[in-house]
């Protein structure tokens, strides 16, 4: 990157040590650009792959993580390198400069005037002030120089932006290293263990809420959960979609919900009834009396048959709850599937004798995804700083202008520095116009 011209008399150019040169490269914007392009190119390639394949073989690969770490190093070194100079630029700008230095500035011009007047610099100071700059005068090696600056905190913009991206990268790494992701859930009365987080969660209530548009739309399911560790309650609350339960950097999210039919099974020979048992879809319940499994296939809250003669549900309303089930023998052979309606006992003939199935009720169960992300506060801080940094980088427009008067040629020498070239040119035009006006040109 091109270093800002300090405007001070130049130091002799000593060759830099190889170590210094390496460090310079590692902190350079050129390397930053290369890394950004590389990350972009790899990402383009990765998105052509199946998402899970890309996650497994690219995004979590050592080399991709390595490139990100290298980017973080680049940003870190750039921040360290630039912090000092930027600090000095903001708080100790070199106000006193030579005429030669003004001529070397990115934007400079000589403004010849015909009338000199008693205090020529007064016009320059006035012009700079009109240009929106904070003006002071300084004694330089070649006499008095008028110095004006504005938006100086904008210099911190890139620094803050870089630090924020660094925070986000580090936060993501820290979160990935210390975090976990798992699943859990159940119906009211059930609880599940999360060994990674050393806690147990008991579900006390699962309720379904239909949307105002009607039961065709996927309803909201709200559950209540109590989290305990070693018998002590550590968190208690409601969980719904977009409303996770959070504690200790751990979040329990509602991910989906299931239907849980309640079945009773009666042996017609003895009259003995088992149950009610609560079964999820694809559960297998071993019925000892007949040496077979009751296999649940699917639950339909609002049952109907579609054109192909397959069971389906018209809506999420429980207008006609039906369970599709199947009898499976220990060897794996199966009876054809059947349908069971609510509170309508069904006698099922099997190879091992008859049995009577009744769906006596049903309820909902909640499925959660559970994760711990300790990087979250870092990510959040980084995000806020990123927006602040971008705003400062682009909208504060730091600019510095120096003006001196050369009595010999009766000209003003005006030089300016800013990263916003066109903005600087416009400012210089304005100053030139103002000086000429003040001098009655």
């Amino acid at each position: 990157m091109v270093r800002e011209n300090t405007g001070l008399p130049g130091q002799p150019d000593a060759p830099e040590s190889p170590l210094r040169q390496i460090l310079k490269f590692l902190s350079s914007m050129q390397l930053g650009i290369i890394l950004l392009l590389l990350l972009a190119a790899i990402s383009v390639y990765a998105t052509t792959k199946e998402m899970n394949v890309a996650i497994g073989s690219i995004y979590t690969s050592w080399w991709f993580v390595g490139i990100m770490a290298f980017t973080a190093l680049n940003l870190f070194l750039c921040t360290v390198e630039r912090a000092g100079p930027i600090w000095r630029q903001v708080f100790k700008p070199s106000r006193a400069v030579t005429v030669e230095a003004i001529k070397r500035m990115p934007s400079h011009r000589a403004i010849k005037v015909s009338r000199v007047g008693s205090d020529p610099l007064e016009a320059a100071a006035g012009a700079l002030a009109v240009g929106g700059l904070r003006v002071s005068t300084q004694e330089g090696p070649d006499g008095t120089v008028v110095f004006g600056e504005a938006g100086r905190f904008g210099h911190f913009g890139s620094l803050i932006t870089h630090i924020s991206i660094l925070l986000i990268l580090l936060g993501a790494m820290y979160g990935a290293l210390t975090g976990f992701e798992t699943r859990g859930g159940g119906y009211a009365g059930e609880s599940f263990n999360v060994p990674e987080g050393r806690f147990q969660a008991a579900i006390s209530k699962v309720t379904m809420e239909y949307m105002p548009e009607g039961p065709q739309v996927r309803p909201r399911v709200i559950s209540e959960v109590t989290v305990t560790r070693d018998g002590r309650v550590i968190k208690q609350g409601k969980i719904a979609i977009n409303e996770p339960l959070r504690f200790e950097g751990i979040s329990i999210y509602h991910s989906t919900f299931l239907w849980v039919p309640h079945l009773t099974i009666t042996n017609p020979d003895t009259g003995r009834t088992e149950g009610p048992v609560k079964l999820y879809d694809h559960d297998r319940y071993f019925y000892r009396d007949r040496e077979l499994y009751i296999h649940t296939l699917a639950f339909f809250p609002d049952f109907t048959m579609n054109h192909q003669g397959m069971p389906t549900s018209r809506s999420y309303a429980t207008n006609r709850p039906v369970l599709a089930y199947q009898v499976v023998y220990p060897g794996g052979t199966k009876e054809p599937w059947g349908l069971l309606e609510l509170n309508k006992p069904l006698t099922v003939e099997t190879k091992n004798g008859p049995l009577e199935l009744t769906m006596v009720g049903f309820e909902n169960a909640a499925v959660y995804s559970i994760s711990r992300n300790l990087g979250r506060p870092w990510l959040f801080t980084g995000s806020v700083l990123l927006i602040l940094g971008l705003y400062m980088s682009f909208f504060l427009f730091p600019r510095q202008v120096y003006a001196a008067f050369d009595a010999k040629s009766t000209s003003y020498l005006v030089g300016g520095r800013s990263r916003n070239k066109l903005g600087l040119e416009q400012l210089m035009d304005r100053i030139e116009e103002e000086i000429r006006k003040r001098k009655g040109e």
Partner: protein
Amino acid sequence: MGGLIQVDPTNLMIEKTLFTLSCLIYLLAAVGYTVNVFGKKEWGGFAANTLRVALLVHTGFLVMRAVNVSRVPFVGHYEFGNLFIWATVLVYVWTEWRLKDKYHAVGAFLMPVVVAYIAYLTVIPALFARITVSSAHNPLPPVLQSFWLKFHVSSSVMGYAGFSLAFATALMWLARTGLESRPDLLKASPFINKLAVSLPRQKTLEEYMYRASVFGFLFQTVMIITGAIWADASWGRYWGWDPKEMWSLITWFVFAVYLHARFTRGWHGKRTVMLVMVGWVTMMFTWLGVAWLLSGIHSFG
């Protein structure tokens, strides 16, 4: 195609009429700006006013749409596309209002881009069976019912608007540079000569391009961040590596490279213009390519 929401027929008719009307007025504004840039300066003011009227009618359409779906009209290609067009024109009208008539030439290059976006919502699906843009009225799936959705979508359309404007000025830069290299053409056709004279200087165009990119970049950043926060709240993870997320990050990278390249004094002119064009292509791919060519959980938007 009927959606899940029953819409009052009168309201539906108003909505559709406002949409058609705004499309037609946008088209008229595009014609106005084009005539202006070919030397008929008196058309500039007409085009600008027409565009403002179009924006107003389009705003009416969005309001009606919101009424008809009883929510913010933010979801699906049809609603997002409309919002995106609206935001692009809004940002343009605002800059035009600030920079006055010398900016009208930009309109002649932005409006064809806007017309292309409109075509995607109207005639393109009619021509290509593979592409369907449904304007059905559907409720919001629960996962989208988040506070963050509003921020996420509004920042993304603003970001896209900025990049569209940057792209239009990049096209102007190419046009101006191309015309300058063909003095024979300028001599031969007074028509083309007038076009060349209407186009601002490269330096000015680069500045417009830079400002529009910066604006887009800031909002693109907000979009990525709010998207991550929302994903974190809904799915339990802030980053899922899905193609839509990745492509918006790729767009962000490209514009970050462009902005860095501009900070160093060395990069200006054609190289930066090319970076902005690539950035716009990646942005369009995020919106359309991901939906039609790649798959992921963002298929709803």
